[in-house]
């Protein structure tokens, strides 16, 4: 039998018992809807999480640390470097080598220090962190009031709106363009006493990296006049990076030039290794190149971390979540499957005579089987279609509900439920598939009917 005849007969048969087949189809659609709603929720949550991470501007970033540092956090990783003491240091030459790697656009250290600003004779404490010039593209600067740093070593600061309110509660915006005094601790090298020179602070504090301070250093109080040029609402990088957790933001180059002392500097004084970096942040041309840059830096003997690594475990988590959501969603579909089997078995019983007639006038067993299959498939198709619509409605309701909830908690509404196009196709295909499987038994039962028995005159 040809395709259009099969379809025509199947639809005609389905319309013969509208109520029963309609109810079965609705049953399927409820199953599909619950599956779609659940899976879309999984997709939506995953996209939400991924979007947060992407907004953090970390997808094109590789974090580099020396294997000498951060030992014992990751045993697996530690095993890659059997002699961490002899691992290369993240020093100035290493930084230059990394900068030379292809696809690397920026290499900056992570710097975060304690500082104080005086304004109108009152001092305010705040963490000062260094931002690279690329931070301008971060979503936090979309709401920038004022300007971004004019250069990487400008004496300019951007501060958080909340901090500005602390400085000037009446008119925080008035701070823009004002010069204020920033107090910080400078790292000053001590000269070695082995050479006989006096153990006093060396005067050279010019270039980044500073003079050789492998013997030791002093932390000396310093002040620097800086100009407030910008106000931002939220911490950059979604507050997910060391350099973003602060209230006062300086160009990282300025911080290096001023040789600001960091907590982590203690460790180099322990080892006598002189100035080196705790963490270098490497920006890559595009997220697709992250892996190759990461590999190249690993080759140089350093430890690297990127959000790519984090998303790997995130993806694993969401796969498991999707699986569970899918299983819950499938329960309703399993019930719907039983409904299809029941409906079709009833149809076979009811249409015994008709099946016999069809066989007598030339239908093969295969034709009969295909006809019931097509009926099952058609119910699956329409159930799937209806289920998508229903699932879509449920999802919209979820979004509206969470939106209201988030707004009540003064949070921006975000869609947690997203119906991707592939899921529409997949749900209908799956619905048809499930229906066909459900049709297996009724169809073969119909095909096996003995026409002689069914046509006996009663």
């Amino acid at each position, binding site marked *: *039998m*040809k395709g*259009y*005849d099969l379809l025509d*007969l199947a639809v*005609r048969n389905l319309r*013969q018992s509208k109520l029963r087949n309609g109810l079965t189809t609705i049953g399927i659609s409820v199953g599909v809807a619950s599956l779609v709603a659940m899976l879309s929720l999984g997709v939506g949550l995953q996209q939400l999480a991924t979007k947060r991470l992407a907004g953090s501007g970390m997808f094109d970033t590789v974090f580099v640390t020396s294997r000498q540092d951060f030992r014992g956090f990751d045993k697996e990783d530690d095993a890659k470097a059997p002699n961490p003491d002899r691992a290369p240091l993240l020093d100035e030459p290493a930084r230059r080598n990394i900068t030379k790697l292809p696809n690397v656009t920026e290499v900056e250290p992570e710097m975060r220090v304690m500082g104080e600003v005086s304004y109108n004779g009152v001092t305010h404490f705040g963490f000062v962190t260094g931002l690279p010039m690329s931070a301008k593209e971060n979503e936090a600067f979309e709401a920038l009031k004022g300007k971004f740093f004019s250069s990487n070593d400008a004496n300019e600061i951007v501060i958080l709106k909340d901090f500005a309110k602390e400085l000037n509660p009446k008119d925080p915006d008035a701070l823009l363009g004002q010069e204020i005094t920033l107090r910080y601790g400078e790292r000053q090298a001590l000269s070695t006493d082995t050479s006989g020179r006096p153990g006093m602070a060396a005067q050279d504090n010019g270039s980044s990296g500073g003079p050789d301070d492998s013997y030791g250093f002093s932390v000396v109080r310093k002040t620097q006049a800086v100009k407030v040029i910008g106000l931002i609402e939220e911490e950059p990088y979604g507050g997910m990076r060391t350099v973003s957790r602060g209230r006062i933001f300086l160009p990282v180059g300025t911080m290096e030039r001023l040789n600001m002392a960091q907590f982590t500097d203690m460790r180099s004084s322990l080892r006598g290794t002189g100035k080196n970096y705790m963490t270098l942040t490497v920006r890559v041309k595009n997220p697709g190149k992250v892996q190759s840059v990461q590999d190249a830096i690993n080759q140089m003997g350093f430890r690297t971390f990127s959000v790519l690594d984090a998303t790997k475990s995130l993806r694993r988590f969401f796969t498991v979540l999707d699986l569970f959501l899918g299983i819950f969603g499938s329960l309703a579909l399993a019930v719907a499957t039983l409904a299809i089997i029941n409906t079709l078995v009833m149809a076979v019983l009811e249409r015994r*005579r*008709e099946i*016999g*007639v*069809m*066989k*007598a*006038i*030339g*239908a*093969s*067993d*295969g*034709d009969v089987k295909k006809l019931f299959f097509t009926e099952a498939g058609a119910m699956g198709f329409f159930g799937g279609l209806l289920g998508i619509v229903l699932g879509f409605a449920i999802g919209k309701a979820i979004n509206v509900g969470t939106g209201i909830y988030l707004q009540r908690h003064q949070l921006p509404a975000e869609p947690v439920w997203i119906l991707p196009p592939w899921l529409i196709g997949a749900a209908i295909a799956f619905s048809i598939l499930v229906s066909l499987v459900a049709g297996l038994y009724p169809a073969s039962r119909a095909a096996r009917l003995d*026409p*002689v028995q069914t*046509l006996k*005159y009663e």
Partner: protein
Amino acid sequence: MSSEANLRSRVAVRTESVCRHYRMGDSLIRAVDGISLDIEPGEFIALLGQSGSGKSTLLNLLAGLDRPTSGSVVVHGRDLASMSSEELARYRRNDVGMVFQAFHLIPSMKVTENVELPMRFAEVDRTERVDRVRESLERVGLAKRMEHRPSELSGGEQQRVSIARALVNRPSLLLADEPTGNLDSRTGEDILNLIRDVSLSLGMTVVMVTHERALAERFAQRFIFLADGKLQSQEVRA
């Protein structure tokens, strides 16, 4: 051509000691029990016998709806017993037309759709179907009732539709199982007239099961009497 060869070529259907036995509980029912029979092309044959004599079972064997327990049913040189169920289905839709006592039309389908149904299984092109449905219905004199449903027709009309359906794939063998059993005697006569006319004009072989001997004698050329699944006697109309 010798008379022997001439005879052989003139056999449309041949059964050779065909048996159809089945079990019912502990007992073995010999519904058809070793019947050998030659039917010539274009012949109109009546199978007569009491109910339970095996005439319907024999008809089902000829129709390829049932398989013989032993023996063979050879139609146009092919043994139905050795065919696969797919081949039997093809045989039924291309070579056989069936007419039943209870008409067996599909109630949800219009007259035209009922007549079209065998062509769906035979995969006849759709453009061709409309003409063939009309042609078939005209042949049985029902061209004006095409859009009706079976339930809106009289018994005689329904039987005409089922004959039109049996003819539509242009079979060479028309098998009728008590075609007049549900009709009054006048209508029954009309139906048999129709069957005889179409078989003559289309050159079809007709095998009809009936127990109305008087009626059969007016139409059939040969009468085959069955009893207990065995061929009891044959008569050729004078």
